[in-house]
């Protein structure tokens, strides 16, 4: 198993005590595509980031098991973590406008990731960066390599991000809402690109999104999170058989062209969902 998560709990210290954001999540992931879906604040990003130990300093992380390829992430040294981050597991963030360093060229940022794990000369890294940019289907990779993030469009920025995270050939790619900040047409392109690269390299993919049908389309399995818990786990093809009322509610509130409705149904939340 690439990823094993058992009873993960994440809490933040607040003036009134500990606020639990993730409350007992269990997941496993092999070399497959797993989608995590849930609304804002359901704990999906925290779950993913805890795997690389990238949570802010005031977070308390507890778990019966939190492991990447058998390495206990909670007990690992900082050095061991650095050997996982980037090299074995990449992380793609939501908005390239914020997630790329504004004062470094795209090429330098990709080259830096390549060089951090593969070593070699600066020139070799720069050349590798241009090749990587070509692999994410950027038409003019040399020009983009010399550009700063503010000179790139959102879709282009996200391609740079993907190139950067794929540079050291990781086994797992975590994508934290990789398309939420992009236009609808670009979203599909980026997802197809990611799917293609992940399939071709035989990597695992953890795709976080709040778009259930989209995740169902791209992933093998889907975990639905609500209020810090996984409320339902399904094979992607079985979305229509979802049992949990929250999952059904999410599916029902998608407008459909084939059955236009005057009003979309409103999700009625049951406090019982919060109980384990």
């Amino acid at each position: 198993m690439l990823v094993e998560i058992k009873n993960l709990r994440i809490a933040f210290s607040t003036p009134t005590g500990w606020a639990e954001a993730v409350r007992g999540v269990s997941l496993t992931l092999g070399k497959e595509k797993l989608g995590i879906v849930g609304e804002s604040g359901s704990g999906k990003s925290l779950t993913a980031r805890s795997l690389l130990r990238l949570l802010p300093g005031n977070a308390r992380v507890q778990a019966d098991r939190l492991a990447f390829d058998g390495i206990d992430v909670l007990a690992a040294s900082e050095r061991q973590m650095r050997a996982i981050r980037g090299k074995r597991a990449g992380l793609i963030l939501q908005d390239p406008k914020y997630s790329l360093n504004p004062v470094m060229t795209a090429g330098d940022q990709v080259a830096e990731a390549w060089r951090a794990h593969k070593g070699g000369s600066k020139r070799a890294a720069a050349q590798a960066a241009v090749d990587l940019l070509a692999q994410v289907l950027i038409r003019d990779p040399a020009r983009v390599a010399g550009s700063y993030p503010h000179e790139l469009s959102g879709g282009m920025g996200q391609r740079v991000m993907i190139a950067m995270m794929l540079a050291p050939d990781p086994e797992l790619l975590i994508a934290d809402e990789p398309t939420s900040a992009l236009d609808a047409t670009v979203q599909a392109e980026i997802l197809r690109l990611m799917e293609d690269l992940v399939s071709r390299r035989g990597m695992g993919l953890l795709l976080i999104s709040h778009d259930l049908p989209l995740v169902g389309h791209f992933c093998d399995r889907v975990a639905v999170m609500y209020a810090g818990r996984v409320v339902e786990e399904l094979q992607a093809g079985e979305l229509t058989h979802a049992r949990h009322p929250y999952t059904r509610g999410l599916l029902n509130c998608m407008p459909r062209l084939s059955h236009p409705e005057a009003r979309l149904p409103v999700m009625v939340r049951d406090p019982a969902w919060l109980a384990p």
Partner: protein
Amino acid sequence: MRRYRALAATLASVPITLFGLILITFLIGRVVPIDPVLAIVGDRAPQDVVARTRLELGLDRPLPEQFIRYVGQLAQGDFGRSVMTSNRVSTDIARFFPATLELATAALLVAVLLGVPLGVYAAVRQGSWVDTVIRVVCLSGYSVPIFVLALLALLVFYATLQWAPGPGRQSVMFDGMVEQRTGLLLVDAALAGEWEAFRDAVKQITLPALVLGLSNMAYIARMTRAFMLESLQGEFVVTAKAKGLSAATVIWRHAFSNILVRLLTVIVLTYAGLLEGAVLTETIFSWPGLGQYLTGSLLNADMNAVLGATLVVGLTYVVLNLLSDLMYRVLDPRVR
């Protein structure tokens, strides 16, 4: 093309700012209730001497005419004569300003070399005891008046421990030994190969530079810490960590490089403030700098000297701002 237009606009603003500066300084000089004639001839001079001097100075002319004449003189580098020293003001400034420049630069080096790393360190260790110590030190450095700090430093390091020499820019035995070229004693001594005099100058400048530097360090460290705290929150820092980079690379290459523009503004303004001449520090350490010159002239109603020194201070602000404006373009690709 747009890049050059912005640059041209910045450069074009320089003469406009300078003109405004001259106009305002001139008007203040004429509006204050000080009679420059009395300052020259004294209050017991006979009436006809007073009247003749007034004519010689052109003070009977209308204000606009006086201003145009003043600007004309300035254009030829003529700031008029100082009453107090009876030298040309330009000569005086050429003597006093390098002393301030030397002290200000040394103090700025202390402030930046200590303040920036401390601020970065405090931000990285936010909330730890190290952070608390740095914050308290900075707060006290910021709130203790500099004359207290300076006198204490003299009391401890000169009077008690005798680690530092007494006030002054040069020991008496080296006085006038070094040939003046730049006016910067350290540079002149090094150029002349007078290493004894150089060592003496270093010893003399150490204590005032430390005192002035430490009190400015507090401000720079505080600002660095605040900027870094914000920068470290950035998503690009998460990206940098996720790439598996070392903590030092994440902090310096990614978080720190993003605060450079704002930090540069703080440093340049600090430097400009120091170049104004630190009156209190210069007085306590008998440092013959611009601050002392300006205060002395002011107390003697020596208006030519006051106007000249003020213009020089204003000019350093303009030049430093221009420099930092040009540096922004180098440091931040978004400004280019």
